[in-house]
């Protein structure tokens, strides 16, 4: 018995239904369209900690907490700006003077050959690596500090190889994401069920949103590979990020899954979420991204719309080699 509070296993369908009944009762009692749910608002709503278990905020429940920010969508606001980011490992300059802009409501692509420094860029942004130089501004303020601090500021990410908590249930994994944004349940730390009912509802809805159809109560380690990516994406979304960084999210997905992934990304973009995407599948990147940054040898060799990038000789050179460019 190591550590796990296997929540997913302790809640049966019957129990869950009863939980839903109570939620419904709460709906009736308060007002038709407010919900007793804090998670969506936890980051933005200061009074998240001073009322009862349910009625944390009085905002409309939304699947997309990022759209709560200011109440409406404000597409095209510059959310993340990276200036002159550099890092080296030993004698290898992994990133050199990288410049990058990410706007809300848009999917921004980062492409480049293997080893170009794309994942290193993500690791620098999420605080796992300390860059040698450069400034990163996020949401109007410098982005600094430990990975956990950055995550709480709304920086969600996935990894090239999915890093789920393998012995925890899928639901527990998602609840972890929920906790990034919302600590209102921390008073129920010794009675996990009570404080978590709203979060569980939220996790279920987000699992459905990303198209996870499996059982939420199985250990995450037992999932097939394609589902690992989906669940990791859901977990990141549960954290209500304002910027979502996805590291090769479509690799290992089959055509159908990739298709629904594109649909999901469009939907999230419409909600006002900013997405930064590393991907090798060019068709997908070209179709999805508003702007693309091309990295090669740790340097930005091109930046612009998909059309610009495809026409760029340097890019064709970097991807296909010299003769394609020459031909």
């Amino acid at each position, binding site marked *: 018995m190591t550590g796990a509070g296997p929540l997913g296993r302790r809640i049966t369908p019957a129990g869950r239904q009863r939980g839903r009944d109570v939620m419904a009762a709460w709906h009736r009692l308060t007002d038709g369209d407010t919900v007793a749910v804090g998670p969506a608002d936890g980051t933005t709503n200061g009074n998240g900690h001073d009322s009862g278990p349910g009625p944390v905020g009085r905002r409309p429940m939304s699947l997309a907490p990022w759209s709560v920010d200011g109440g409406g969508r404000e597409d095209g606001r510059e959310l993340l700006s990276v200036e002159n980011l550099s890092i080296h490992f030993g004698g290898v300059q992994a990133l050199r003077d990288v410049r990058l802009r990410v706007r809300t409501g848009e999917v921004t692509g980062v492409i480049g050959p293997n080893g170009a420094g794309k994942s290193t860029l993500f690791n620098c942004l999420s605080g796992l690596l300390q860059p040698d130089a450069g400034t990163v501004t996020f949401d109007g303020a410098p982005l600094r500090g430990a990975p956990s601090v950055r995550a709480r500021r709304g920086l969600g990410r996935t990894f090239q190889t999915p890093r*789920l908590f393998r012995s925890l249930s899928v639901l527990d994994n998602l609840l972890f994401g929920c906790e990034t944004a919302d600590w209102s349940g921390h008073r129920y730390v010794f009675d996990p069920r009570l404080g978590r009912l709203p979060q569980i509802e939220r996790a279920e809805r987000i699992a459905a949103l990303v198209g996870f159809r499996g059982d939420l109560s199985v250990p995450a380690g037992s999932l097939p590979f394609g589902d690992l990516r989906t669940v990791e994406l859901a977990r990141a979304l549960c954290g209500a990020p304002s910027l979502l960084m996805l590291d090769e999210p479509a690799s290992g997905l089959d055509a159908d899954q990739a298709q629904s992934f594109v649909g999901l990304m469009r939907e999230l973009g419409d909600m006002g979420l900013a997405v930064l995407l590393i991907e090798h599948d060019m068709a997908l990147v070209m179709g999805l991204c508003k702007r693309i940054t091309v990295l090669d040898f740790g340097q930005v060799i091109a930046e612009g719309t998909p059309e610009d990038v495809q026409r760029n000789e340097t890019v064709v050179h970097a991807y296909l080699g010299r003769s394609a460019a020459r031909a």
Partner: protein
Amino acid sequence: MSITDVTTDVERAVQGAIRTAASSVASSATTPALTRRARLSRLVGGVVLAALLATLPFTMHWAGPAFAVDYGLIVAMAVLSISVLGWIGEISLAPVAQMGFGVVAVNVCQVHHIPFGFTLPIVALSSLPISLLLAAFTLRLKGVSFAIATLAFAYMAHKTFFLEYLGTYGAFGGTGTTQVARPSFVRTDESMYYLELAVLIAVALVCYAINRSRVGARFTALRESEMAFSTLGHPPAAYRFFAICLSGAIATVAGALFVYLQLQVPSNLLLPAQAILFFGYAVAGGLGSVTGALAAGAVFGAIPKYLETLTKSEFLNYDLFVIGLVVFVVMMKAPGGLAEIGRRVWRRVEGSPA
């Protein structure tokens, strides 16, 4: 009546409703799964265990004095403090040294005439500086390196401090006191057993609660992927510090009880190598398991003492050999230790599919 009052009333009503729902959520999960046989065996098992725990010093009187089982409980606590670090996947070999600081803390309390009621909480708090020092190591050291660092610390504590302060015979250097006095209500070893049991149960309940809470799940997550853990907004260092402080507090309290039991603790009972033995117990119990640690600690702690009496001191130090074998068997056959074996057996008793 203002608007806010109405809201609070509604809130209270709904709070009540949610509580009810939550409790039914909990009960509905377990009730239908249990067969009659399982319920019966749980009841019988619980009663037998409670009865055994309540009378252990007396029921075991044929085998030896109550001191043996008292010692077993202290070992159980020390092993628990090692096992708890299994939550964050680290190995510490410092708990025996921390026990030593508990011994010293009790003596200091006694010199300053602090009543017994305050002593244990003070001892628990006094473990913090050393725990924080050890925890600072985990900022940079993980795994084997951390284990070596704790071992070096234990070695230093023994050689530079316990040897001086406790000496070969357990006298307290410079204080004029040669031994600790037990509080009046635990004059006998039998009554000491109940004091220990009470403390142990309290500590175990705290551990269970933490393990089952969201913090427990976070420990698991931290162990499985620190990168995912930190990029989801949780500070890994905080959880490491918490686990190490908890472990330190348990070990230090165990040390305090140890000196109450022994009255004198000579420094050679606090050898760093002793921690390796306790770690062996923790492995046998199943690292990270509270029940396993308690069971393994109590059994492996008490049995050699009983055997010592039964065989008229012919049996000495055989426990090293035995526990060595047990560690092998556990590593190869049941990496989860006694806890895993216990669960397997229990499933069979209950008659539910494994």
